[in-house]
């Protein structure tokens, strides 16, 4: 078994109102110096060794992310 991490983030040009709301809250809470925040999703998958990188990419591209508005990165973190 391998652990695979998929990170999904809104594309840079796509409005991210949730990230903006977090960024706007930080100074109010007394945290200075945070320029901007982008909010995305983090998936952790337990994956059989038989699952190849192409399959993982297909899972990310066609299901975990919507490539119209999101970028994704697949990483194998341990095996």
């Amino acid at each position, binding site marked *: 078994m391998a652990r695979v991490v998929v990170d999904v983030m*809104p594309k840079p040009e796509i*409005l991210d*109102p949730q990230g903006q709301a977090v960024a706007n809250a930080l100074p109010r809470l007394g945290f200075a110096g945070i320029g901007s925040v982008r909010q995305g999703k983090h998936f952790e998958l337990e994956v059989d060794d038989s699952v190849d990188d192409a399959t993982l990419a297909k899972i990310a591209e066609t299901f975990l992310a*919507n490539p*119209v*508005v999101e970028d994704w990165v697949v990483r194998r973190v341990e095996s």
Partner: protein
Amino acid sequence: MTARIGVITFPGTLDDTDAARAVDRSGAQSVALWHADADLKGVDAVVVPGGFSYGDYLRAGAIARFAPVMSEVITAAKQGMPVLGICNGFQILCEAGLLPGVLIRNKGLHFVCRDQWLRVDNSTSAWTSRFDQGAEILIPLKSGEGCYVADQHVLDELEGEGRVAFRYVGGNPNGALNDIAGITSANGRVVGLMPHPEHAIDALTGPSDDGLGLFLSALDTLVAA
């Protein structure tokens, strides 16, 4: 013969009852379709109604698009069957690739629930032919993820081909690009919109009966076929 229009129910669908009522009010016959059945029961058109299918898990519409009934809808739509997606239904049709673009979180994050003026910018599709081009209609909008987004080339294509079916007027409620409230497929058979025409079919229960026009349009399309 009475036109039969299917209304799909997913786990988390809210507006199937009103959608069926709107279909029946238009003079067609509503047919209940179930998400887990790969069976359209021989209907002539399909409405994918609003709500929170599968709890909006992952992304709104992302799970529902893989439901067995949706495989049948996708196949039938590609053969020209009229399909209307309302709110969550619009999100599902975008995720399914039947309509381009995607709906994201409203600009400003607030869930918007109000009666909304729209302008009909396409009066030739299967679901809009009863309207006059440029007509303004009032129907309820209730959504948290209604901000329409697409690549610039997709927007250019939609605008160039007259495929923006409905546009917000009197202020953009959610940040949708080009004030887009609803669009049609290239062949004009599939339409999706965020506001809820099924809630505006009778002045007794809605702000107008403007929404009935979409269902009457479909009936015209099916009767003419």
